[in-house]
Each structure stands twice: as structure tokens, then as C-alpha cells.
């Protein structure tokens, strides 16, 4: 049988993949995609817990799904701003490699 733990573990693996992507890749676009993976992993656990807590009305706990809605909205706004920064950066430097963008590095 599929338990709550199965979904949580899939979510954990997905989060670790996204984290590894942020740590390992140097292409800014791939880093943004890995951020999306991490946000979606969090969404998966939220929805799993929502289904796990069936309320007295016999429906899942919708508070978690409202939260997922907010997370998706914020993630979409974040992607738009992130990609705009990327385009501005590419115009100034002709690169998307984080190794070449080190002016602020101490």
C-alpha cells in the first residue's frame, strides 16, 4: 500500500535534486529551474498532508491547498523577475555563467 511516507520521500528526493542543482550547476537558467524543483517538492508534501488530514466534513484539509496556490503564485512571480534579471545581466555581460559574475564576491 502507498503510505504518506512514500509521498514524503518522493518529495524529499525531488528537493535534494533541486538543491544539488543549485549547488553544482553554474548556468543561471538551470539554477532557476532547480529552484522551481525545490518549490514543487514542498508543494507535493503540502498536498500529501492535505489528503492525509481528512476533516469532519469528509473532505481533505483545504488550507494546505490554498497554501500551494500561494506558493505557485509567488514562484511564477519569482521566475518572471529572475528571468528579467538574467536578460539584463546577459545584455551587460554576454554570459549566464555564475563563474563569470563575481564582482560582488569578497
Amino acid at each position, binding site marked *: 500500500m502507498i503510505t*504518506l511516507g512514500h509521498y514524503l520521500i518522493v518529495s524529499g528526493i525531488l528537493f535534494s535534486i533541486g538543491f544539488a542543482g543549485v549547488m553544482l550547476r553554474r548556468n543561471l537558467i538551470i539554477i532557476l529551474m532547480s529552484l522551481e*524543483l525545490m518549490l514543487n517538492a514542498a508543494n*507535493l508534501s503540502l498536498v500529501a498532508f492535505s489528503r492525509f488530514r481528512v476533516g469532519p466534513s469528509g473532505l481533505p484539509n483545504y488550507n494546505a491547498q490554498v497554501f500551494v496556490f500561494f506558493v505557485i503564485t509567488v514562484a511564477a512571480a519569482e521566475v518572471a523577475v529572475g528571468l528579467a534579471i538574467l536578460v539584463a545581466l546577459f545584455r551587460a555581460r554576454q554570459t549566464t555563467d555564475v563563474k563569470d559574475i563575481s564582482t560582488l564576491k569578497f
Partner: protein
Amino acid sequence: MSPFLFWIFALLTVIFGAAVVVNRNPVASALSLVVSFLGLSALFMSLDAFFVGIIQVLVYAGAVMVLFLFIIMLLNLRAEEERRINWLALAGGVAVALALLIQIFLVISRFDPARKTFPPLPGSTIDDVRNIGALLFSNYNLPFQIVGVLVLVATIGVVLLSKRELR
């Protein structure tokens, strides 16, 4: 949901999620991310969250991924040329990610409810759009409006960032 379908979609999500990180070509990464999100949306639907599954497809697999692909094509990014791989940095990054994964496994293995199956659902979730909407406009009215302001600020910020000359 049948365990068979769960394993198919979980494997699809995880394998294509890994492909996003491993691929050298940004277009291939973006397309892998689409497949990963579609698998994730199927997992949401398996949890009786139809509304979330559908906005996952509409917002992520639709809008966000088109934006990513558009930017990749616009900037004319190619696959990264083979740089010399810094093996020490690679091993360090993988080790930190693995440590995180092991911690998550440990936490879940000590978490008692994680071993329980999902309780049966007496009510129908066919109309969960209505239920979520009612909650959004009653209990979560203020956060909802704040999110609206956030989206407005993001829009203005993107327009400002895309201008050639800031003055």
C-alpha cells in the same frame, strides 16, 4: 490510487528531475522539467487535489516553461562546452545534497504517521475549486490581496528591469 500508477509517476518525476540537473543543454533541461512537472501533476491528482494538479499543468508546464524556453531561445544559449570539471567541488556538492537526503530519510523514518496509509475520503473532491475559492475569499482574503500586490510589484519590476536605459 493503485500503487502501480504511483510508482510510474513517482519514477517519472524523479528521473526527469534528475535529468534537469544532469543535462548540459539548457533546452533539454527545460523539456525534462516539463515532463517532471507533468508527473508531479499526476501525483497531485492521485491525492484527490484536482485543482492543484490542473494549475500545476497550466502555470508550470504552460506559462513558466514557455517563459524559460523563450529566454533560452532569445539569448541563443548553447550547450556548455566541456569545461574542466572541478572534481573536489563536484564531490562536495553531491556530498552536501546526499547529507540533506539522508537527514530527510531519517526524519521520515522516525515520523509515525508516515507509515499510515491515507484515510478513506467520504466526501467528493470533484468541486474542490469551489471549496478552495470559498476559503481564499473568506479566511485567506488578506493574504490573497497581498499576493495580488506582489504580482503587481513583480510586473512593474520586470518592466523596469527590461528597460535599456534606467534613469
